[in-house]
């Protein structure tokens, strides 16, 4: 188990390094901060001064090494070129709204997916099963930003029940959370259902039933716990999708999170901010993958020898 964790850990660190390097490399050759950020009448001296201020006149590898060292040892992502404040401060403000949104969406998805998936698995071919299948298909075809706009029109404009943008109160959270939740719901439902189906056909479930264990107990205690393994495993992969969905959702609802910050920064060419957000999203995804790997190896020891 220990070598398994160390292997996975090293792998994760490697992936993180590659992501940091590739994103740095891409943005280094894309961004032209002097011409985007300085006034048009800036002369060569101004540009040189600007580049010196941000250390942009050094070779790429030196800049990268400097950047990496500061991130790793000081948690310092540098300064924003546009807002003229520390990137860390911008991200600190935007992080919590995104987490709030992601957690709320995950709760909505879980609350719906687990019971629906279980019922669909137990009562195959029933109405609930068919509705679940249909929801999965519809959910996968639904463009998030369109769903967001439709929800805004119905609940914000027509019914006037909920605010359509901003993030001050709990009411503000409802529509974005539903939007993002609907994005991850189909996959969750599918996993719970197929996991349950597979487990229910196993011998130990039949044994438990044959021994007269109460049906509800069989389902929850014996079946669901094992069916949860694929759910745990996929959390990591799904986490990346969740962040991607957050970018879309935040844009539609003007939600002041990391996703919107990323898009705004990309659009104005604010390289250090984009760089930091890509790294943070990547790190979250890697950590989620790592937790899922280790978690599922812990639940099911056979995986370690895979």
């Amino acid at each position: 188990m220990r070598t398994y964790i160390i292997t996975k850990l090293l792998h994760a660190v490697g992936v993180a390094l590659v992501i940091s390097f590739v994103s740095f490399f891409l943005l280094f050759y894309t961004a032209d901060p002097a011409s985007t950020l300085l006034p048009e009448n800036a002369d060569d001296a101004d540009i040189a001064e600007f580049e010196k201020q941000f250390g942009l006149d050094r070779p790429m590898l030196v800049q990268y090494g400097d950047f990496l060292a500061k991130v790793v040892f000081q948690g310092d992502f540098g300064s924003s070129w546009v807002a003229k404040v520390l990137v860390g401060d911008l991200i600190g403000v935007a992080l919590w709204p995104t987490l709030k949104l992601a957690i709320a969406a995950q709760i909505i998805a879980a609350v719906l997916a687990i019971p629906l998936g279980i019922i669909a698995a137990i009562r195959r071919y029933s109405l609930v099963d068919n509705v679940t299948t249909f929801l999965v298909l519809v959910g996968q075809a639904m463009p998030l930003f369109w769903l967001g706009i439709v929800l805004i029109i119905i609940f914000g404009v027509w019914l006037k029940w909920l605010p359509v943008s901003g993030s001050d109160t709990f009411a503000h959270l409802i529509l974005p959370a539903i939007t993002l939740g609907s994005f991850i719901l189909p996959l969750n439902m599918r996993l719970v259902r197929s996991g349950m189906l597979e487990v229910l056909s196993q011998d130990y479930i039949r044994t438990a039933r044959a021994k007269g264990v109460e049906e509800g107990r069989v389902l929850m205690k014996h079946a669901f716990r094992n069916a949860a393994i694929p759910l745990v495993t996929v959390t990591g992969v799904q986490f990346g999708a969740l962040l991607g969905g957050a970018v879309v959702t935040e844009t539609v609802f003007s939600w002041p999170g990391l996703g919107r910050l990323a898009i705004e920064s990309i659009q104005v060419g604010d390289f250090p901010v984009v760089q930091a957000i890509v790294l943070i999203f990547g790190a979250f995804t890697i950590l989620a993958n790592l937790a899922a790997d280790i978690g599922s190896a812990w639940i099911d020891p056979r995986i370690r020898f895979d």
Partner: protein
Amino acid sequence: MVDTTANGGIEPERQDKQAGRAPIWLLVLRKAWQLRMGVFGFLLLAILVAMALFSPLIATHDPYAQDILARLELPGFLGGTSDHWLGTDQLGRDLYSRIVYGARVSLMIGVSAVVVSAVIGIVLGLLAGYFGGWIDSLVDFSVNAMLAFPFILLAMTLVIILGASAENVILALGISNWPIFARVTRIETRKLREQEYVLAALAQGLGHLRVIFKHIFANLAAPLLVIATVEIARSIIRETFLSFLGLGIQPPTPSWGVMLAEGRAYVLTVWWLSTLPGAAIFLAALGINLVGDALRDLLDPRLRKG
């Protein structure tokens, strides 16, 4: 390769038992439901393809023709009386005709992006799975690193580097999405590599390229086709989102994403301007997904999801 049960390898036993228990009428209903969904999907896809191929015949107006006097006309179903049955947009262009021409853009980009990612992913997956060794480790690592990258941010960054245009959106989406194909191809190739018929081909002195393409790839084509179908739907949604953000197709080209973005300014009053192009995206993706599901059932029973 031995498993040819028509009802999916994962759960044949359970299914048989259930089938024996469920009343006939329910099974008939279910079959009809499946068929109906498949037929519905093919119908949607047929409409999409027809709109793309024969846009000038199906559209009623020139999608670029502006009519300042007839701006924001009501659609017929809301009591509009003009000859624009879905009304007009903020520049007086015919909404219906723009949606029809938008199908051409979406389908072209969706299919091309998947071709790009499929070619990259399949070639790398075949090489990695077939030769193993360092190339396998490299591809596996790259796939993991790519999957930890937030997809949408990567695609956006690439578009910004390359410049916003249809070709570059295709490249960006294609380059961002190859790991999906590489992962599946690599795992399946590794399994097929050990098959005796592949060993037999090698034993006959056939070259690696022939063995890889004629003997291994030919047996992967069916599952990859299913994945490609679903990925086309996802690429269409992603393209519209990029265009929605202004990073994809540029106005005045009739793209569903651009139309959605332009209509968003009018959600308070002219709600159909954004929701109708969004509905087109949704129906296109739904149709392709339903066809993908039907293909999965037809081509490879083992791939069926529970």
